[in-house]
């Protein structure tokens, strides 16, 4: 039974990991940039939701919508002002521009809101669902559901709408897309905005069971990269599978390892995937 419970807990965590990682994989898939600052946008999303709760009394589940919008605009601007300028630059410039962004975002947060840990109080925190002897705590269930809804909406947006087709066309071949009358620059701005906004949304919905501080992104960085590498960089469906897998791995390793060493298990998974299946566990690109 503890095993089944751990797997269930892992799936609940993994649903959220999937959504925050879809953002990262989307940015790579469309713009071919690995955004090392992605986890810092998660931090920004958590703060926006926190302040929406603090000042407006909004439950983070609704605050997550504000997080999404605010970070979308932020990402849109970042793409236009910064990322756009290194798209054709050597990889080293791409890597260190987003690393610089990571440092800037983290320290801006430190200056603006201070280093203390902040958390919200919601009605759901002491509630839980029971089913056949298994327990799901309510905040986890809500975060999982919200992530599921967001994931389905992104899938619909990318697979079923005209805009989604233009994005996929640009990801495949920006030059050909341009010849078809698509403005790749515009698609890049929207995709980067959408990518970081999704991650911020994920940050907001997990706020009820976590605390937020300027350095909260650090604990998600390696995790997100493990998820997207497992699923194949740029593969949205892969990020979902990878997210669920990482959630379950983390939860299972928690049964017999101290908390800090769970990252080590993730790293081993990460390195083995890179070494043996660099294209990810799912081969087909979606």
């Amino acid at each position: 039974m503890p095993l089944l419970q751990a797997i269930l807990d892992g799936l609940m965590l993994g649903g959220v990991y999937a959504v925050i990682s879809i953002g990262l994989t989307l940015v790579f898939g469309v713009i071919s940039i690995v955004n090392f600052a992605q986890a810092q946008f998660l931090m920004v999303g958590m703060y926006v939701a926190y302040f929406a709760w603090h000042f407006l009394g909004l439950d983070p589940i609704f605050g997550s919508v504000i997080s999404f919008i605010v970070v979308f605009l932020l990402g849109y601007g970042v793409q236009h002002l910064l990322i756009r300028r290194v798209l054709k630059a050597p990889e080293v410039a791409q890597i260190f521009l987003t690393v610089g962004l990571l440092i800037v975002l983290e320290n801006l947060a430190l200056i603006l809101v201070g280093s203390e840990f902040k958390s919200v109080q919601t009605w759901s925190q002491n509630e839980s669902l029971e089913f056949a002897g298994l327990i799901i705590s309510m905040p986890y269930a809500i975060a999982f559901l919200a992530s599921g809804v967001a994931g389905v909406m992104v899938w619909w947006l990318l697979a079923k709408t005209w805009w989604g087709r233009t994005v996929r066309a640009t990801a495949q071949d920006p030059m050909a897309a341009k010849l078809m009358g698509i403005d790749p620059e515009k698609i890049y701005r929207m995709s980067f905005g959408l990518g970081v906004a999704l991650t911020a949304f994920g940050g907001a919905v997990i706020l009820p069971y976590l605390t937020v501080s300027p350095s909260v992104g650090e604990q998600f960085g390696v995790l997100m990269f493990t998820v997207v590498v497992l699923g194949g960089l740029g593969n949205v469906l892969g990020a979902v599978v990878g997210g669920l897998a990482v959630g379950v791995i983390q939860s299972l390793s928690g049964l017999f390892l101290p908390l800090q060493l769970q990252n080590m298990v993730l790293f081993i998974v990460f390195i083995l995937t890179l070494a043996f299946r660099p294209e990810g566990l799912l081969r087909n690109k979606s």
Partner: protein
Amino acid sequence: MKPSKLLIALFLLLALGLPWLVSGEGYSIRVLTLLMLFAAMAQAWNIVGGLANQISLGHAAFFGLGAYTSTILLIRFGLSPWLGVFAGMAVAACAGALLSLPTMRLKGHYFALATLAFCEVLRAIANSWSSLTGGPVGISVPFVPNAGIGLMQFNSGRPSYYIMLAAVVFITWVYWRISTSKLGYELRAVKANVDSAEVIGIDTARTKMLAATISAGLMGACGVLYAQFNFFFDPDSIFSLVGISVRVALICIIGGIGTVAGPIIGAFFLLPLEEIFNATLSNKGAGVSQLAYGLILMGIILIEPRGLQALFQKFMNRGRS
């Protein structure tokens, strides 16, 4: 391009004389010592990052391994840090070789990610394995009053400075030897095009692994020197992404990646600048000087990712035409 003998002589003269222009103790000599240490570390990074264009975001891993190795050996067995340098170098080199087994075929972003993750894991291990490392509170090098040269502890700041200077000279010499040797040309071939390098008969995996091992070992030695200089470190500061890994890469970028003088130019530029920021901005609150640091990094990338040397050349060319 062979660096001119005159420039080398001038640099050495300046470097040898610098500590006598400031007080033997206190702030200034400390900054100069760190400047030399970071130039040495950046040069070690340059072997992998510059010659083979493998961008590592995890060199703090080897730095920290070196520091922990010598300090633990000193505390547990009283081993002199002079021997600890070799122990630290060996441990770091082994780690570098091991890490390159799964990562040597990775390129660009993937390599950067893997090295970053490796360092994060070492940080987690160092934080949780308290019985060996002292855990999150850190570890101190036992200070013995008047211990002298045998324990690499000095009453004045100058000897430490000269040790770091020796490290810069040695690692720069290693870099120069590699870059003009067969290995150097093989690495450049790997950088230009891995597949073509394979076709002309270069064992690219072996080449990259060798470079990674040398680079890691030298970084480990720098870690030992840092531990002996600073007397204290903790997992979060020694395995720091921003404080160590990114900083050594940034120094190379500023000076010019893959050039022999790059790390030295970069260190002479960045460290004084950081000190000015710290001095003028630190009273404005936590994070301000770090923010400035991040902005410099982004600024340099956007203006000229090939660094100051390229910027200077551009400027000269514009003046001529």
